[in-house]
């Protein structure tokens, strides 16, 4: 039971970092980015090829680099790689395209990434993927298998808190407010001096950096990564977490991760098993996975219909200072001003 709790909390913290990154792109900048999981995958793959060492002939494996760098250094390089890929995708997709057209281009981009990673074997070992990152930093710190789980939980939580604090700063900064003006009306943002393309691109690369960072942690948690870890449902779960919690509100996003990423995802485990017809002892293993998708889809639909702003709507700056009395007034106030 403890091991189970440790694992879902670790997963939740990593998932939270990913969701906070998506919140920059979709919550603040306002772009429905379907390539987001691609940056997570780039972060995960790069972490693995930088740490697991050269490919072995038995079982046959092929991949680039094959270095044995210290895990923290690998994470940094993985994040930079994810940022570089997002810069390429973003500089194409964000230049002129918005709304559904932007989403289609990012869908195309992530599909290209997915096919290359899955089919071009010399890159990341194709469909078999990469494995072998066991307990990074564990040997240096002298941790055994059991204590390592706690260490990695602690590491993930600390990283989540750090990312949360940084995002809280961005959220209340002028930069964060400028990103929101793009979401609200970008022609007006341009009319008041904002370079919408560069501003959106900065937000996009920042979000992708968090995605890549989440992926780098995820690779260590799973100790492996392959195209089957990269299913479309994963990005839907991330969007669901941001939507349910509250788009644009980092507290909301954290709550959304707890609900969608941890509660819904884990509770579907406890649904009754459905036995194979005529044989009560064997069950359909795929039913559980399918039920998870059904529950997430249902929650998404209900929220979109009844509470599209999420559980904790985006908080706005509230000016509590008493109104100053200003004289002389150029334009007199009268009852006309009220609606």
């Amino acid at each position: 039971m403890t091991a189970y709790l440790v694992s879902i909390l670790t997963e939740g913290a990593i998932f939270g970092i990913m969701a906070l990154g998506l919140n920059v792109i979709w919550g603040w900048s306002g772009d429905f980015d379907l390539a987001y999981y691609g940056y997570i995958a780039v972060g995960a793959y790069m972490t693995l090829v930088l740490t697991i060492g050269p490919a072995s002939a038995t079982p046959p494996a092929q991949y680039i680099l094959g270095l044995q760098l210290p895990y923290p250094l690998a994470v940094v390089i993985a994040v930079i790689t994810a940022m570089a890929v997002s810069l390429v995708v973003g500089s194409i997709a964000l230049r002129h395209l918005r709304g559904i057209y932007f989403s289609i281009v990012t869908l195309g981009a992530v599909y290209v990434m997915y096919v290359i990673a899955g089919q071009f074997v010399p890159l990341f070992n194709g469909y078999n993927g990469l494995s072998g990152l066991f307990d990074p930093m564990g040997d240096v710190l002298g941790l055994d298998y059991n204590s390592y789980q706690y260490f990695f939980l602690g590491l993930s939580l600390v990283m989540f808190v750090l990312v949360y604090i940084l995002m809280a700063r961005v959220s209340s900064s002028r930069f964060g407010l400028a990103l929101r003006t793009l979401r609200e009306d970008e022609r007006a943002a341009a009319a008041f001096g904002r370079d919408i393309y560069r501003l959106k691109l900065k937000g996009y690369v920042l979000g992708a950096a968090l995605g890549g960072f989440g992926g780098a942690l995820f690779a260590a948690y799973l100790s492996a990564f392959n195209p089957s870890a990269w299913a479309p449902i994963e990005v839907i779960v991330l969007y669901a977490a941001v939507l349910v919690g509250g788009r644009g509100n980092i507290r909301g996003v954290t709550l959304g991760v707890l609900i969608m990423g941890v509660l819904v995802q884990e509770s579907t485990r406890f649904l009754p098993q459905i036995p194979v017809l005529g044989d009560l002892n064997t069950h359909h293993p795929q039913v559980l996975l399918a039920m998870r998708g059904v529950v997430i889809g249902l929650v998404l639909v209900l929220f979109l219909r009844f509470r599209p702003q999420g559980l904790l709507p985006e908080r706005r700056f509230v000016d509590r200072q008493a109104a100053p009395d200003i004289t002389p007034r150029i334009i007199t106030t009268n009852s006309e001003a009220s609606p």
Partner: protein
Amino acid sequence: MSAPATTSALEVRGLTKRFGGVVAVDGCSFRAPLGQVTGLIGPNGAGKSTAIDLISGFKLPDSGTVLFKGMALQGLPPHRISRLGLMRTFQSPREWPGLTVLENVVMARWDSGRESFVGGLLGLRGAQRNTAADELSRAREILDEFGLLALRNERAGNLSGGQKRLLEFARIRMAAPELVILDEPMGGVNPVLGERMALAIEAFIAAGTSVIVVEHNLPFIKRVTEHVIVMAQGAVIAEGSFDSLRSNQDVVDAYLGEMVT
């Protein structure tokens, strides 16, 4: 440069824009005097809105030049033109609906240093706070001028149509550009609010902002402008004071004749 840029807030020469076979703006040339209110009128389809888009960089002209403070603006993107001090409003108010009224006014002022990403992350140069104290008090003052102070924490999207027009003016007051082009500010506005807008335009001039106003409401044009430019079929057909234009047969035929005034 042959033009004495000191006396014109804006000079447009031979501006042309085609959409397929339609010539929306056809060799349009005019000058807007510095420190004055210039009216830009003309029938629907005269090319006024396209001309504004070309001047403010939201559309690229096929040919022609736009001179502002002695600089050629054509080809520059909208944010660059805005940063140089030439701003515009839109036919339908474009507030940031999800932000508060106060945030809308504060964000009308672009600030390169404080809006930097690294500054925001590290809290450099006061960039951590999205609103600086002096900026806030200035925004409050402006909102008070426009009678919107009580609504400052309201989502801008919840305002009435007339209030959104006032907010648009308040944002221009905050940004304090050298020239503003107002695109049909009286659209859907009642006469009492119209008087308030006329006073606001006078306040723009007093604050050193020259004004170009595109409007179909001729009493309003007569009330606020010193100089009027008449466009028809993509080109300027006449200019002068409002009263002188009423005796101009071309103008009456093209536009004023349709009006009851």
